[in-house]
């Protein structure tokens, strides 16, 4: 009796082991991902309510990384659909392997063959996830790069999680898959898409949290270096650059400066490694007059 009830309970309340957002924070932390209360709440709600999660934020703030971490804590593999302008259903859903069909047709001669068998079907990310929703997590990366048509198509997919293939029939997900979408907000997403999702805006972390992230991610780094990097990066972001440095850049900067430190002092090491963190000539020019003060303050 007990055994029969267990899977049912799991179906009604998925991820029941996550009782509150704090559990999500804890589990993510085990995977070296530091989430703040807002992100943890959003992830928690998305998982427990079975809704897609839409993460928006500036580039390099760890949106894709969040998806990977969620996949890790839910024991799923990430199926990534990278959006680009002009992406269409055949790249997102499925495609027939036409070359193979042609060959089969040639070889068959007079015999009749089934051209729409499973061996001719190329599964694209959406179908892949639909067929094994309990083992895979769908990451739709940079939705803002796709065009409006594709967004409308996604909306349809996200509302009923089914795909109809004319030659085979309708494919349905047996359970609601975890879907995570990211957007850099290079354009406004459609209201309907936002409405369907649990939403979170990931901002740059505060200096303290960023230092912690750098410390966890960068490997051989002293705490003081991580803190100095976090402070300096924070200052750089406040300078209204056209490409403000992301967290990845901050981590790389800390690593680069640590490598260079044996030859020179701290502020000097940071200054020489500036190419890691600012990759735009005009930004570099704009920051040059302030760089000395920023680094001196950060390294104190």
């Amino acid at each position, binding site marked *: 009796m007990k055994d029969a009830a267990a899977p049912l309970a799991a179906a009604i309340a998925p991820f029941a082991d996550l009782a*509150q957002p704090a559990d999500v924070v804890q589990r993510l932390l085990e995977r070296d991902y530091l989430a703040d209360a807002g992100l943890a*709440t959003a992830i928690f709600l998305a998982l427990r*309510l079975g*809704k897609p999660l839409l993460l*928006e934020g500036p580039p390099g703030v760890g949106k894709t990384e969040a998806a990977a971490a969620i996949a890790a804590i839910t024991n799923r593999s990430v199926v990534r659909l990278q959006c680009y302008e002009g*992406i269409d259903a055949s790249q997102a859903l499925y495609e027939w392997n036409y070359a193979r069909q042609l060959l089969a047709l040639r070889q068959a001669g007079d015999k009749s063959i089934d*051209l729409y068998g499973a061996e001719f079907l190329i599964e694209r990310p959406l179908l892949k996830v639909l067929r094994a929703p309990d083992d895979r997590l769908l990451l739709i990366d940079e939705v803002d790069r796709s065009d409006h048509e594709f967004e409308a198509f996604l909306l349809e997919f996200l509302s009923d999680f089914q795909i109809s293939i004319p030659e085979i029939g309708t494919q349905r997900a047996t359970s609601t898959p975890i879907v995570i979408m990211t957007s850099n907000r290079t354009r406004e997403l459609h209201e309907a898409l936002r409405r369907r999702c649990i939403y979170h805006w990931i901002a740059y972390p505060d200096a303290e949290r960023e230092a912690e992230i750098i410390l966890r991610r960068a490997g051989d780094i002293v705490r003081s270096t991580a803190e100095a990097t976090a402070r300096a990066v924070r200052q750089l972001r406040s300078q209204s650059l*056209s490409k403000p440095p992301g967290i990845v850049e901050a981590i790389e900067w800390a690593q680069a400066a640590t490598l260079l430190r044996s030859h020179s002092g701290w502020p000097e090491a940071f200054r020489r490694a500036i190419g890691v963190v600012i990759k735009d000539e005009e930004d570099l020019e704009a920051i040059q007059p302030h760089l000395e003060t920023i680094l001196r303050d950060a390294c104190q």
Partner: protein
Amino acid sequence: MPQPAVPLVGFTPVLRAHKFAVSNEQTVTFLAAVELLGPVCFEAIHLAAYACFAPPYDRREEFEALFCAHFLGDPLVISEQEAGKERGLRETSSGRDLATAETRQGDSGRAADAAELLFARRFATGANRETRRRLRSLACRMPQRLSSRMKPVRRGRSIHLSRSMARMLRNDGDVPKPVFRERRTRARNILLLIDISGSMKDQTREYLSLAHILSREVDHIEVFTIGTRLTRITQAVGRSNEFAALAAVAQRVSDWDGGTRLGPGLSALTGNSRYLNYARGAVVLILSDGLERGDSAPLLHAMQRLRRVAWRLSWLSPLIADPQFRPQTDALRQLLPILDDLVDGSSMHAIANFVLHLAIPAPRASAVWSHRKKSR
């Protein structure tokens, strides 16, 4: 409805009253979320509201204020709201139309004055209808670029496998004639920057009408105004009714007829990677007289940046209608080498003419103007 749920459900009408698009599904999600999180702390409800109602990024402050007003009873915001209501009432009682009343409510009186200014000259020209008619063919006359989507064609280099396969099956395995494919084309984006400073006062109304017409005719357009600061009005100006569009613009923009600060305005555009993206591969149209006060270095700097990402960079100035005009101000002289076009922007007619011929290559601005100098 259970008693504790009442304020939660009551938040939806509050949001709707302030023009947040909220669906019933979102309200249900919000209730489910709060139930799931449990009445542990207030912060949980706060975070759930953000996660479920997904307020647009640039309206988060407004959302925050509404949330505090609704759940915490923040007196500051409520009193402001009431003040707004009173104002609205006074407006309607004095017999103004609804659009103006709304504008009053939304912002300071300044915005409303601007709206009045815009409406006052509504019937001043018949050029409006004429321009609308002429621009109807714009969508198919826009400059094109290659898209990464494919379309089937009769002749081409690569074979359209799915179509050819389908054709084969129809013909019992024969290939009478394969179907080919090539890349589709797509109209380029337009980035329209409108100078609304005091010196452009006479054109502002016309330019906004034009922006409205353009955004109804083409699919990909972004519109900004530049006065003393940069304002994005794409959504406002794209409303289907011209009246409503202009009212919405009047509400968004707060720096009508001020000083010209083109440089800082453009720098704000190029400094924001999201906005700069709108210019990538696009037709950039700047409607301004180029009378920049003060230092022209930031203007030049921003324009060079635009030059590098835009497909065509055109400056339309109302001053050019004057046959005596020569680009002799400091700013324009320096800008001339990096501009593709420096043309007449004095009337709707002239601008429409220019926009309709964007796809046709034209000599560069510097060549045109050095020629004019000689001929003089």
